[in-house]
Structure formats: structure tokens, C-alpha cells
């Protein structure tokens, strides 16, 4: 089957591509917009922004989220900030520099044109959010404040205390509620998307389950946008919300949307370590903490002394030692791997030796407790609540955890997947971060896609088609709905011995051990049959209590896990074939003498794009070659 991987990048100089594209996009006459309908799945920054913006333009929008309210999407948990190339600090920032940093930070596995557009739009995002009343931090003069963030040497991060994601999401949610009030957006909260409906080769709708009544319905539209976030929960333990899942993108993949770079997962260096078997999720401590905190472990292996008992010269501030110019602000993948390395050497701290110190005593000495409290007070509180330890007096213990997935559905420059009419926004797509995302760039991408890209590109798509034309009696609708109903019925009827969470933990363990921070051929080769066997066992031995016609959280988890069990396999396949190390994908066989990621640009300077071939056959791997005309391929160095 032929798959079209034309990225549709506009011609011309990189600075003019987006303007050129916007001019060339076809427009829908204002009077005709209300005749078109768009489905938006997910109400985080990308989905919420897109639904609001499309509603403002006059389209009929149906927005879906599985939570009880669109305000709860997991974008809300982003703490640190959002990047924008405003150069308000006069410290040498520019659109070009943000573009450069993002391509380099992504270890040269992202499309230059997309990244440039993202950097260009970043400045509008801040203006838009300020206009909505997002209470960004300000200086005494009343102007916006900035801070620096991992992987950047300029201060370009805008923030609202440690709740930037929340405030941006609330801005977006309020814009969405306004459209709901005006009748332009119909909101379906507590609805989970179970499948996409493809008719005559175009995405025409989705199948949903009402999580209160259990009703499974088909919703049709002229275009579908998925903004359903990442798939980090394949690891069971991650910083994602418990409900974050891959079902929407996975179902789209199985209906013909290609999946790109599934193995690119980001491990965040600063999370609170696991405390016991019952652990249900991992809590991130914002990366901004690394601005003032110093990371260290004892020089000696198995040193069990309390932090305060270890003298200065017996501490190893390993990031400062290994990466003198970036030090504690080294990019996430580098900081995470360094932590793993020192823990593997037996120098980790805390229970199980899986932790490193993040120490604020120097900063408190230098700036005073009050300043530190102002900057990080709420983060310190979170830490104390969870661990019972006071980070003002005892250093925090942190360890890396799965945080973000750079991989996702393949999209072209217009954010359209390989299924025409199916657009993918935000973390759900693969486009902008390459093999590693820089801190404070996820919020930027979500809002860029939602407010400023999708409204144009979806409009362009709609202008080329006639509205309507199908109804629910179409055989494809019936088929998709019946398929979803049957899956639910099957899951409820297995009545085995193991709970969904037990299977999920088992999958998570395989993924973390074999396809986590460090990967190798042997481990990946082992993982594949393990996942397949687990999946088989799941379908024979899972127990899902309750019925399908009511609130049933076990059933929700089961439908999500069923898809994770398939996605995990694709991640392993992708990681196995990519015989190089880049960004978040670290193949132990491919490293420099200092233990840094060693890319192989001759063989792997491309996006790996997977095409589903049915349940009986292995998926096919295509490639989208990447060329770097502006940011030249170099070995990333943060020394």
C-alpha cells in the first residue's frame, strides 16, 4: 500500500515559509463556515485552543474529553513555563535562536520548517495569553518576568509561579467555555474516543463511549483533530495523569494514520523517587528547580551517611563536573542519563539507591530563604507533602521518570496525518521536538498548534471539500461502533484472575527495563516476545468487574491498556531498528567514549514512520528523510 509522506513544506526561505503557506491556504467564506463541522478530541492546550479558535472563526465544533471538565486536561500539570522568543531580556534571544536551540536540543531529528514556525509563533502565544488574562509573573515595573530553563542560555521562559500549565490551560478553557456559551462549541465531557471513522479514505468522525451511561455513539464531522496527548503511561509509572492514554492515536494508527518515532520518549531528570510497590504515579518537580539547586551524589559508593554529614569534598556535583558550561541546566536527556549512570555506579541516595540530591543550601545561603520560597515555595510544599521531608533543610531526592513522548502520529506541515482530514495536534503528533524536547517547549507547541496553526490548516482542508454528505447509517459507522461495542463486551466477559493494574504494572516493568532510559539490542529482542505474551495473557486472564452500561473505571483502564499493550510492541520495534543514540533514545551500543549519545546521521537522519498492516503482520517502517540546511548537523555538546 502506498503511503504518502510528503511533508508539504512550503518552498522559499525558512523565514517566509509560514507566511507563504498562510497566504496560499484556501479560505472558507465567513457565511459558509457554519456549514462545516470539526471534531476536536482532547481539551488540553492544543485541543482546547483549537476548539476555541475554530469556534471563534464560526465553524461548528464538537469537543470531547474523558475528564469531567475540559479544564482538567493534563496540560494543567506543567509547572515551569513556556518559551517564547520575545527577547524582553535583551540577552540575545531571537526567533532564529529559539529555532536553533530547539533543533539542536531535539538532536537533529525534527523538521526544520516546523520548528521555525513554532519559534515564530511563540511570540504571539504570549500576547494572546496576556490578552486572555493569564496572570504571568511580572517585575515591579509591570513588565513580564522571565527565567532560564534547561538547555537554553537565554532567559526566554514565561511563567506563572509553578503553575504555568494550569494558567495557560485555564485561559484556553475560558475561551472554550465562551464558545460553548455562544453555542459554537458543543462540549462532550466524560466521553472517551474509542475509534476513528474513516469513510472513502477521509476521517469523518469518531466513536465514543459515554463514561457515565456507557453508551457507545458515532459522531460525524467534516474533519477530525486529535489532541489527545502523549503515551508515557505505557510505562505505567510516569508523570502523566492516570487517565492519559494512547487509545485515540492508536486507533487512528490502526485505521491508517502512520505513527512516527514511537521510541522517542523523554525521561525527565527531576521527579520524586518511587517510595513503594503501591506507587501509582510519579510526581515531577519542575525543571526550573535546577536554576538554583545543585545536583550531587556522594563520591563514595554505598555512602549511607545523611546528606549533611557528607563533607563538601566528598560530594560529586557530577553535572557541573561533566558539563561545565551548562552544569545543572544541561538538557533533560543528558541530565537523566547522568543520574542513571551515577546510580548504576552504586552512588545513588535514598531507599533502593535510586535517587540523587538536588540541594538548595547554597542558593538559600546566597539568596536567602525568602527568595527561594518565592521562587519555588509551592514546589517545596509538594515535595514535603509527598515525602515528609523539608527541602529547606534536607536536600531533595530526585530520580528520572518518564515524562513526555516526542513520538506520535506522523503529520505533514499542515498537521494532517496520513489519513486525509485527520489532524493531530500537540504531544499527540511527532512534529517539533525531534528526539528530545527542551523544557518549557511543550506548552509552546500545544498552544501554537491549537491557536495558530490548526485553525488555518483545517480551514484550508475544509475549503477543499463539501460539507456533510454522510450520516450514521453509513456501513463504516455501524462497523466502527460494533467493533467498539464488541471490544467492551469481550473485556467484560473474560472474567480472569488478574486486574488491569497488574497487567499494566507488568507492561510498565518490561518497558522501563528494556525500552527505558538505556536500551540495547539484546534487551529489546527480549522485550518483544514478553510484550506479546503479556498481551495474550491479558486477553485471556484479565478481570473487569461491573457492566458496560454505567460508570466503570476498571473498564476504562482496560480499554486503554489493551492499546498500550500493542503500542509498547511498536515502541520496542522502533527502538530496536534505530541503531544509534539520539536525544531520549539511548542505545547503549552507540555512545561516545564519554558515554554521550552517538548519532548515526548517515543511516538514521530521518523520521521512522510506521504503517499498520493488520494484526497478523508486522508493521512496515517507512522513512521521512530530514535535511538540515540551517542548523548544521553536529555532535551535541553541552560541555
Amino acid at each position, binding site marked *: 500500500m502506498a503511503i504518502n509522506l510528503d511533508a508539504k513544506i512550503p518552498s522559499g526561505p525558512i523565514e517566509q515559509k509560514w507566511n507563504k503557506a498562510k497566504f496560499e491556504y484556501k479560505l472558507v467564506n465567513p457565511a459558509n463556515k457554519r456549514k462545516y463541522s470539526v471534531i476536536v478530541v482532547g481539551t488540553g492546550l492544543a485541543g482546547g485552543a483549537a476548539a476555541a479558535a475554530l469556534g471563534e472563526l464560526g465553524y461548528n465544533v464538537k469537543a470531547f474529553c474523558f475528564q469531567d471538565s475540559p479544564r482538567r486536561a493534563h496540560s494543567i500539570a506543567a509547572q515551569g513555563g513556556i518559551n517564547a522568543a520575545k527577547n524582553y531580556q535583551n540577552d540575545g534571544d531571537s526567533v532564529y535562536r529559539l529555532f536553533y536551540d530547539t533543533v539542536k536540543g531535539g538532536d537533529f531529528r525534527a523538521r526544520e520548517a516546523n520548528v521555525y514556525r513554532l519559534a515564530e509563533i511563540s511570540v504571539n502565544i504570549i500576547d494572546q495569553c496576556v490578552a486572555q488574562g493569564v496572570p504571568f509573573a511580572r517585575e515591579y515595573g509591570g513588565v513580564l518576568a522571565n527565567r532560564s530553563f534547561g538547555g537554553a542560555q537565554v532567559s526566554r521562559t514565561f511563567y506563572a509561579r509553578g503553575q504555568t500549565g494550569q*494558567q495557560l490551560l485555564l485561559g484556553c478553557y475560558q475561551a472554550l467555555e465562551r464558545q460553548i456559551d455562544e453555542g459554537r462549541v458543543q462540549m462532550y465531557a466524560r466521553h472517551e474516543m474509542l475509534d476513528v471513522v474513516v469513510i472513502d479514505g477521509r476521517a469523518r468522525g469518531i466513536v465514543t463511549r459515554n463514561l457515565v451511561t456507557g453508551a457507545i455513539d458515532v459522531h460525524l464531522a467534516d474533519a477530525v483533530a486529535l489532541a489527545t496527548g502523549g503515551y508515557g503511561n505505557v510505562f505505567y509509572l510516569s508523570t502523566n495523569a492516570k487517565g492519559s492514554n494512547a487509545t485515540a492515536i492508536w486507533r487512528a494508527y490502526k485505521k491508517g494514520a502512520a505513527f512516527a518515532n514511537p521510541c522517542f520518549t523523554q525521561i525527565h531528570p527531576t521527579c520524586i523517587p518511587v517510595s513503594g510497590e503501591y506507587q501509582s504515579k510519579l510526581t515531577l518537580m519542575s525543571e526550573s528547580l535546577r536554576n538554583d539547586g545543585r545536583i550531587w551524589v556522594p563520591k563514595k559508593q554505598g555512602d549511607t551517611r545523611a546528606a549533611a554529614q557528607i563533607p563538601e569534598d566528598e560530594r560529586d556535583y557530577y553535572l557541573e563536573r561533566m558539563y561545565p558550561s551548562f552544569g545543572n541546566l544541561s538538557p533533560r536527556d543528558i541530565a537523566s542519563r547522568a543520574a542513571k549512570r551515577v546510580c548504576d555506579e552504586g552512588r545513588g541516595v535514598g531507599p533502593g539507591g535510586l535517587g540523587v540530591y538536588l540541594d538548595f543550601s547554597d542558593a538559600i545561603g546566597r539568596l536567602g530563604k525568602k527568595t527561594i520560597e518565592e521562587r519555588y515555595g509551592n514546589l517545596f510544599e509538594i515535595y514535603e507533602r509527598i515525602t515528609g521531608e523539608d527541602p529547606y533543610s534536607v536536600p531533595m531526592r530526585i530520580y528520572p521518570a518518564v515524562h513526555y513522548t516526542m513520538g506520535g502520529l506522523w503529520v505533514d506541515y499542515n498537521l494532517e496525518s496520513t489519513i486525509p482530514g485527520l489532524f493531530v495536534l500537540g504531544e499527540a503528533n511527532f512534529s517539533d521536538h525531534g528526539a528530545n524536547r527542551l523544557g518549557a517547549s511543550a506548552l509552546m507547541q500545544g498552544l501554537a498548534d491549537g491557536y495558530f496553526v490548526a485553525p488555518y490548516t483545517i480551514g484550508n482542508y475544509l475549503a477543499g471539500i463539501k460539507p456533510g454528505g454522510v450520516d450514521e447509517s453509513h456501513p463504516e459507522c455501524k462497523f466502527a461502533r460494533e467493533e467498539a461495542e464488541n471490544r467492551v463486551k469481550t473485556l467484560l466477559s473474560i472474567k480472569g484472575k488478574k486486574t488491569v493494574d497488574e497487567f499494566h504494572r507488568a507492561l510498565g516493568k518490561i518497558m522501563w527495563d528494556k525500552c527505558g532510559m538505556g536500551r540495547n539490542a539484546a534487551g529489546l529482542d527480549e522485550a518483544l516476545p514478553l510484550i506479546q505474551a503479556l498481551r495474550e495473557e491479558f486477553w485471556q486472564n484479565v478481570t473487569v468487574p461491573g457492566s458496560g452500561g454505567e460508570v466503570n473505571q476498571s473498564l476504562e483502564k482496560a480499554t486503554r491498556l489493551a492499546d498500550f499493550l500493542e503500542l509498547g510492541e511498536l515502541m520496542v520495534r522502533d527502538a530496536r531498528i534505530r541503531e544509534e543514540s539520539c536525544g531520549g533514545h539511548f542505545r547503549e551500543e552507540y555512545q561516545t567514549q564519554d558515554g554521550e549519545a552517538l548519532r548515526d546521521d548517515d543511516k538514521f537522519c530521518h523520521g521512522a514512520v510506521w504503517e499498520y498492516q493488520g494484526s497478523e503482520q508486522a508493521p512496515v517502517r517507512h522513512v521521512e528523510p530530514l535535511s538540515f540546511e540551517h542548523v548544521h548537523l553536529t555532535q551535541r555538546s553541552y560541555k
Partner: protein
Amino acid sequence: MKLTLNIWRQKGPNHPGRMVKYEMPNVDEHMSFLEMLDVLNEDLIHKGEEPVTFEHDCREGICGCCGFMINGLPHGPQRGTTVCQLHMRQFHDGEELWIEPFRAKAFPVLKDLMVDRGSFDRIIAAGGYVSVNTGCFVDGNAIPIEKQNAEMAMDAAACIGCGACVASCPNASASLFTAAKIAHLGLLPQGQAERDRRAVRMVAQMMEESFGYCTNTGECEALCPKGVKIENIARMNRDYLKAAITYREESAPAGGS
């Protein structure tokens, strides 16, 4: 530690509910409260019983999904903490706990500890926004905002919409929730144009949803996991009073043309 839990079990919105007793013989003090319930649920599933339904998502205290009453207090005994961030070290061995859903007419119980808080969304939809379309902006630094005002706006905007204020209020009032949004936007220059309209419409919607009224008891402020202050309610009252005097009615019916 060992705990005895009395948990409200209710099959659906139109079913009667009741307290059911569960013994938890082995609770680790480092568990979060929700992890303790996870353990109970795994156990219930293995026994062939239905697990306890409770809402949760981010489990880091920001999404606002979780929340129920523990011993008569929303989110439990620790101040400034959502139930997902509440850890078992806050309880002692042998303690007996009463766990029930938030109760208000505007928060109907859907199942067990899960309630429908759609009324909050409708209050926001009535006016909790700045009416700017995407693209209608000036440079972010074009209008300076006094740091103190920006901070106060942020204090109010920290609301996570969990509903603890309603649950704790003897009158089941949503004043703190509504006031937080009115104050957040009213403190910023961007929110001035719609200030009157916002107050009038949001307060009207709050009543429409059958929330009670505020008797200034201060319970909401004390139990708000994000420390939203009742001075925001005074601000709402002030805005509402002013709007009631000066607001010109809309010529078109509310809800657009």
C-alpha cells in the same frame, strides 16, 4: 498501620447510598490516600466485588479531579492539600475514617464518591473569561500590570475547581469558586471591559445552579487546597453591587445572537 474505612457506596445517581465498612490491615504511611484506595480496590476486584469509584487524574494536586470528604472535611485533615497529595502519615494506627462524596444539589452523585461538577463549568461559561478572539492582542508588555495586582490575580486564579469550597460550606455555596474567577479577571486591566457583565452573569448562573449563599463562615477559605481567600468574595460582592447599580442590560438576549 491498620485502618477502618467507612465508605459511601452508591450505585448510580438514582440509587440510594449507604456507608460500607472496610478493614485495611496493612497501610504504609508513605502511601497517598488514593494509593491506599487503589490497594483496597485491587483487593475488592480479586474478591469479585466492585471497586470504589472515585475521581482522580493528575495525582499531583493540580487538575482538581479528586476530592471527597474524609471525616467531614473535604480532602481530609491536612490544610492546603488535595486528597491525592494527602499521605497516610497524616493518620494514626487504628483510626476509623468516614469517606463520603461532596454533597450539594449542584453536585449530584454519579457513583460512590464521584459527583458531577458540570455546574462549575456553566458558571465559567456565563462570563468567566475575557472576550478576545484568537489574534486580538497587543504586545504582552504593552500594558504594564502592577506586580501586586498580578500576584493577587494569580492567588485567585490558583483555584483548581475541585469543589471543596462548596463541600465545606454549611450552605453549599459556590461563592468562593465564582469569586475567585471574578477577582482574577477583575484585578487585571484585560478584564475591565467585561467586569460588570461578568459579575452579573456569573452570580446569576451560580443561583441558577442551586448553590447556596455565603454566610461568611470562612470554612471554604480554610479548606481550599489552594488557599484561595474569602476577600475575593468581598471583591465579588463589591463588583456585583456596583454592576447592579450601573450595569446596562444587554439589548440582545444572553447567549449570543
